[in-house]
């Protein structure tokens, strides 16, 4: 009996840290575990006893790279429970905020995490030094635009502007937003260059079966609003989320794996799911970017997610332009909230996929219980599923190549493994 183990101690270039254990006996995979060093979700207990008004600031800190996703899911859910009507213009401003986050997150992933993979470089530094300096600079330039737009609308450390339950603490001025227009115009041209860069990339294919899940909205490409749908015809609301999707605790991981409650099978959320389920809502530029990036819809191939991210960035840029040009600051920027007891539920589309929030609220507005299901949690089981499908076809490759291929399969999901931890490992002499 031949036995071979592939241990990838650290899956490089995903957000955070992870490990992959694969054991092959006589050509068959007998063990496959994606080990996630994610700490337990203290934030859910951290939120217990807090006043609802504190929630946006607290949840924004759960994920350093997608604070908007957390804030938006929270404020929408709570506003619905409290039957609050936000000022006119708030919807648009919140959509703009989400556009900024998609731009920033997708461009980071495409250029610094995925491109090194598919071009055969160890990391982004090697990529930049290996003849792709211009491409990296362009990617960072578009990313920076997303960062700056996000800071202008949603606030930064020293900036008092921020999303609150009821609207915004302060609405950014039209003049400040219009200052972004030239940069957005430039980026609209550059994103097509990104698409052209992505199209000829040699990447693996994995034409596996899967059920993709995303929000849908008859009026627009979904970000903050909509119900949920799947490629197998499911339709459900955020309020039904916990009946439809359930979380399993697996022994080898600190995280939780989501599966459908009725079948026990996993599903996929993310840019590919969104683009497949909302193809009709793609903006013209997004459609062009998708085609130029080599995206052929519909597809279930997870490796198509890179092109989907490029298409979504184009869409976000186009939407940002439209929203800014039509922008009139909501005045007043927020409404007073009268809390009531009950359960608040909502989903929004984070860069990595659908994110679900649930808050149980007491009559005085304090949170008695919170449940947050991030997109990466929902995708974890499917990552393992993909690996089980993909690896048998490449088991004959040498270990190093096999490792790289396994990493690529996981990176399709742009997983955010440890959303709130951040530390450096170092071995230098004591100062």
């Amino acid at each position, binding site marked *: 009996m031949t036995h071979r183990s592939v241990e990838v101690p650290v899956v490089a270039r995903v957000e955070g840290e992870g490990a992959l254990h694969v054991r092959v006996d006589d050509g068959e995979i007998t063990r496959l575990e994606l080990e996630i060093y994610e700490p337990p979700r203290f934030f859910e207990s951290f939120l217990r006893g807090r006043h609802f008004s504190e929630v946006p600031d607290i949840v924004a800190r759960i994920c350093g790279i997608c604070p908007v996703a957390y804030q938006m899911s929270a404020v929408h859910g709570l506003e619905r429970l409290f039957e609050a009507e936000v000022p006119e213009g708030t919807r648009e401003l919140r959509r703009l905020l989400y556009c900024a986050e998609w731009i920033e997150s997708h461009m980071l992933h495409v250029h610094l995490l995925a491109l090194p993979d598919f071009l055969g470089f160890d990391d982004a530094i090697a990529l930049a030094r290996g003849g792709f300096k211009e491409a990296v600079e362009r990617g960072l330039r578009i990313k920076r635009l997303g960062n700056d737009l996000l800071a202008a609308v949603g606030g930064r450390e020293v900036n008092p502007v921020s999303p609150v339950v009821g609207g915004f603490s302060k609405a950014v001025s039209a003049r400040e937003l219009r200052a972004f227009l030239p940069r957005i115009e430039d980026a609209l041209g550059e994103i097509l260059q990104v698409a052209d860069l992505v199209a000829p990339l040699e990447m693996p294919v994995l034409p596996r079966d899967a059920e993709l899940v995303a929000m849908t909205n008859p009026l627009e490409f979904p970000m903050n609003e909509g119900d949920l749908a799947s490629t197998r015809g499911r339709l459900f609301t955020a309020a039904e989320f916990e009946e439809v999707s359930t979380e399993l605790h697996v022994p080898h991981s600190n995280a939780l794996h989501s599966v459908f409650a009725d079948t026990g099978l996993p599903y996929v959320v993310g840019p590919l799911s969104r683009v497949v389920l909302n193809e009709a809502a793609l903006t013209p530029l997004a459609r062009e970017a998708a085609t130029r990036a080599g995206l052929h819809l519909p597809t279930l191939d997870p490796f198509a997610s890179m092109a989907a991210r490029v298409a979504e960035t184009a869409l976000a840029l186009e939407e940002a332009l439209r929203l800014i040009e039509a922008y009139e600051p909501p005045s007043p920027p927020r409404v007073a909230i009268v809390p009531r007891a009950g359960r608040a539920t909502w989903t929004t589309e984070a860069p990595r996929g659908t994110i679900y929030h649930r808050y149980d609220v007491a009559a005085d507005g304090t949170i008695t219980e919170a449940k947050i299901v991030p997109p990466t949690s929902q995708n974890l089981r499917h990552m393992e599923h993909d690996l089980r499908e993909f690896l048998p076809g490449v088991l004959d490759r040498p270990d190093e190549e096999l490792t790289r291929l396994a990493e690529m399969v996981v990176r399709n999901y742009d997983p955010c493994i440890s959303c709130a931890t*951040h*530390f450096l490992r170092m071995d*230098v002499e004591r100062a």
Partner: protein
Amino acid sequence: MIGCGSPEGGDDAAGPLAVRAVRARVGRQVEVVETGSPLRVLDLLEGADVVIVVDAVRSTGGGRAPGTLVRAKADGSAALPAELRSSLSSHGLGLAEALGLAAALGPVPRVVFHGVEVGTAQTGAPLSPAVEAALPALVDAVAASVEEASG
């Protein structure tokens, strides 16, 4: 002056906490940023003469006692120690990798790094006693760097 870390991340809060304290002492001389992402450091290098980064660190193999202060420098000729290259931040790019990328793309300013060895970086946990005890010394060291850079 950049405080890297997560205020709710146990000892990972050291960076932000330190820069807040330093800001109270010498804040007028320096632009202060708190961020959970080393990649943000890359954006902030532009236009700066000196960048002081404060962060929690963890040595591989646990060779360093929690609360130990560390310091490193990088300028045009010398990069941050290779050990800082590991991709163990929540953003997939370690600090040295972010700086390495910046250097690959163009000239970079002088970087002074101040770190404190973590005890625990668990979400929701308070500072470990060792790191809490080390914080004043860290603040002193960072403030001194700010004075030196501004002088």
